[in-house]
């Protein structure tokens, strides 16, 4: 692991009208590490990921991924990361193989490399036998694995995972993190993840940043956070840092659609 930061965020502010979702945030992610970004609902996690993945522009401040500024080198930057969003982004009417193939075309992976790497990744994520099945026949865990495999197809330097284990059973979650750990070692890919499960962050993350009300309130390894707060679990440390008040966000359009999705899909 090198100490060279692959992601550098400096004094980033993002406002939506009167609401400041991210308020003067600065942090570095080192190349090759697994970095967990934790915070209560509405703390600014997803907004930060959206800015790092070029979907949103910061109101002010600067961010860099592998030395590239999204404002000036958007396309080059996009080639260097893979992302698994909080909501699914697979085409469920296509097969696993077709989903991988389209991704390969979108990222300009040459045909032969595309085929070889698709096979490697589908085998790694135990989906090879199901490659010609439509994604809509997959379980939640399989879909998630396929999304991660797809995000790795173009050999990115950074993989963003926004709550990748949300809605999965403990078995699938356990398996998911084993996969993430393995590929972090095997591919030397930097992993930037968010999760609400503290035990997961404790288990897989090299370093953790805690964000609350749009500000970073602590950064460090799990052990450092526990020491800093004088607690014996990451969960307790997290509560000590962010308080116990429940965050009632007003529902957004996406939340409303998520509810409809729950009715129709399950």
């Amino acid at each position, binding site marked *: 692991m090198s100490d060279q930061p692959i992601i550098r965020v400096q004094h980033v502010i993002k406002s939506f009208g009167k609401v400041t979702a991210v308020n003067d945030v600065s942090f570095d992610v080192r190349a090759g590490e697994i970095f967990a970004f934790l915070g209560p609902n509405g703390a600014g996690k997803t907004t930060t990921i959206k800015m790092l993945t070029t979907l949103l522009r910061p109101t002010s401040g600067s961010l860099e991924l592998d030395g590239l500024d999204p404002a000036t080198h958007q396309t080059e930057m996009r080639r260097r990361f893979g992302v698994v969003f909080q909501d699914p982004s697979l*085409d469920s*009417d*296509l097969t696993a193989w*077709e989903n991988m193939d389209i991704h390969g075309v*979108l*990222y300009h992976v040459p045909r032969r490399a595309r085929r070889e790497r698709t096979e490697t990744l589908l085998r790694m994520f135990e989906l090879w036998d199901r490659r010609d099945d439509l994604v809509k026949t997959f379980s939640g865990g399989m879909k998630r694995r396929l999304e991660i495999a797809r995000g790795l197809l173009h050999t990115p330097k950074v993989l963003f995972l926004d709550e990748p284990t949300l809605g999965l059973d403990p078995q699938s979650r356990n398996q998911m993190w084993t996969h993430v750990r393995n590929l972090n070692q095997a591919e030397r890919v930097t992993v930037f993840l968010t999760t609400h499960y503290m035990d997961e962050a404790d288990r897989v993350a090299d370093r953790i940043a805690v964000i609350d009300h749009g500000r970073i309130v602590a950064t460090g390894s799990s052990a450092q956070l526990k020491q800093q707060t004088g607690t014996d679990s990451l969960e307790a440390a997290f509560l000590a840092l962010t308080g116990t008040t429940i965050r009632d966000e007003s529902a957004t359009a996406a939340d409303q*659609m998520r509810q409809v999705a729950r009715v129709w899909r399950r």
Partner: protein
Amino acid sequence: MTVVFILWLREVKKYLRSRVQIVASLGGPLMYLGVLGFGLGPVFRRAGEGSYLQFMAPGVIGMTVLFTAMFSGIAMLWDRQFGFLKETLVAPVPRLAIMIGRTLGGATVAVLQGTLIFVVTLIAGFRPASLLAVPLAFLVIALIAVIFSALATAIGSSLKEMQGFQMVMNFLVMPTFFLSGAIYPLEGLPKVLGALTRVDPLTYGVDGVRGLLIGRTHFGVALDVAVLVGVGVLFVLFGAWRFSKIEA
């Protein structure tokens, strides 16, 4: 180019796989054709206008293309949050290539669906005046498809909530259909209605198809095509602009 092609191919593949949807989407046009076509037929004939089936078959084809194209855009709203669209939005390719691939894909699906309805009208007894004009009529149908796919892309990029869907259906798609002269002749309309039909792009589409298939046209096929091409360029530019503004 490969990007445009693969996104186009995706839309077409999905369409060909969705057999249930294909059959289901034939329901509406079939009802218009069967119930209105045969129900109003005798009145139409008594008014000295000839066969109503001949008259309205091009209108029903236009309607099918309109509905199919618009639905593909509404589906985009869902796709943006829970589907594949987001994946394409972070890919290292120009937004324009994505927009064109999607829009052409949606348009192709609409033309395929229109073709299916064309075959159905033939079975129901519709007879084009000249077979040579059929390919030309399909060029006009393709123009209609591109216009409404591009408009649908613009709407799909701008709407934020699923509730907007009802608004679009009731205040845009249905009026576009009913004001297009698909089911009644444009001659001798009350002034206001006449003026409204003239601002509806589908009017020129249906008129062009009708002109080519049964030789009956209100504006003349040349004017129809000119208007359609103009509106098409405008809507594609508008759609591309709205699509480039999507913030996921």
